[in-house]
């Protein structure tokens, strides 16, 4: 008889401090969430350091992988923003890679018997993390938009070719619509990762409890087991897709900032 160590499907989202740190009254403890962010960042740095260490005309496998990633994001930025988007490439590339790696690292199974603080943690399944990323994007959009277009940036909120009496109402709606962008961006990534991981753990939990029931009931465990296999495959798709969607929308919003005055 074995006993499952993981309890509910929500336990995986618990934030656990590992090293207690305080900056004045602010709690800046190193948590499992922060630890996994550092792991993701470290993994990306190591990957690119290794891939570009011996840059050659005929690339090694690692270098080809890095080049494919580079060209993928480079094409995306050029197609969405145009040649002026070149300066945003480092940001979009960093954002895309980090979200992709954070999503994918969340799929690594936890080794049994590890303390809770060392369990695999999906940082992007927390709204505050995705909201912070979205806020950085929207801050760049606003700052660059005003720097590039000056007050012409406000044209973004005034759709052209409308009767003047509709303007006040529509400007209000456009402003709210603009402000809702970071939230929409953040909710989408968070909800996808969160929901996917809950479903995954639910199915897995069903398998364990059905097996624990003993007798012929154990046979029913096959269904949730197959379900969890399917959801795992789906989660890999979602992990890549959501990183891509986040990057695409960032590009679309940056495009608005670059071309606000042309409206």
């Amino acid at each position, binding site marked *: 008889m074995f006993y499952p160590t993981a309890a509910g499907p929500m336990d995986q989202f618990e934030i656990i401090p590992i090293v207690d740190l305080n900056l004045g009254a602010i709690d800046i403890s190193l948590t499992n969430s922060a630890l996994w962010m550092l792991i993701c960042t470290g993994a990306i740095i190591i990957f690119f350091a290794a891939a570009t260490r011996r840059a050659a005309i005929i690339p090694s496998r690692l270098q080809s992988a890095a080049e494919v990633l580079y060209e993928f994001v480079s094409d995306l930025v050029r197609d969405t923003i145009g040649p002026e988007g070149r300066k945003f490439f480092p940001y979009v590339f960093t954002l895309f890679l980090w979200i992709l790696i954070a999503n994918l690292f969340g799929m690594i199974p936890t080794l049994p018997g590890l303390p809770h603080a060392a369990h695999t943690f999906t940082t992007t399944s927390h709204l505050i993390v995705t909201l912070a990323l979205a806020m950085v994007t929207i801050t760049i959009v606003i700052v660059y938009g005003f720097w590039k277009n000056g007050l012409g940036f406000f044209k973004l909120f005034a759709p052209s070719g409308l009767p003047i009496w509709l303007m006040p109402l529509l400007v*209000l*709606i*456009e402003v*709210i*619509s603009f*402000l*809702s*962008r970071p*939230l*929409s961006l953040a*909710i*989408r990534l968070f*909800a*996808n990762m969160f929901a996917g991981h809950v479903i995954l753990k639910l199915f897995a939990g069903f398998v364990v409890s059905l097996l624990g029931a003993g007798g012929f009931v154990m046979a029913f465990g096959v269904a949730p087991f197959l379900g969890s296999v399917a959801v795992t495959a789906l989660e890999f*798709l979602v992990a890549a*897709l959501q990183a891509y*969607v986040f990057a695409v929308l960032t590009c679309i919003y940056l495009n608005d900032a670059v071309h606000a005055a042309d409206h």
Partner: protein
Amino acid sequence: MSKDAGKEAPPSLDEFSERLDAMRGEDEPEKPSSGPAWGKAMRASSDLLAGLAVGTLIGYLLDRWLGTSPWLLLVGIGLGFAAGLRNLSRSIK
């Protein structure tokens, strides 16, 4: 028997690639399957939700600041819903 077999030319590579292209061409339109469509649905729902949430929040905060509860909250909900629909129409286009 052997003469007939000799006459028949082996299928040329050109003809083979033509056939391959034809077969690929038939399959191509089905390629964008449930993945992107499902992503689009996710996107639409979060766009609508975010507009409504921001509108409501702004209305609520203005109410608290100006002490006009509940009027600005109601206006905020209405405008937020409109903004959500605006997001939706923009993202679907």
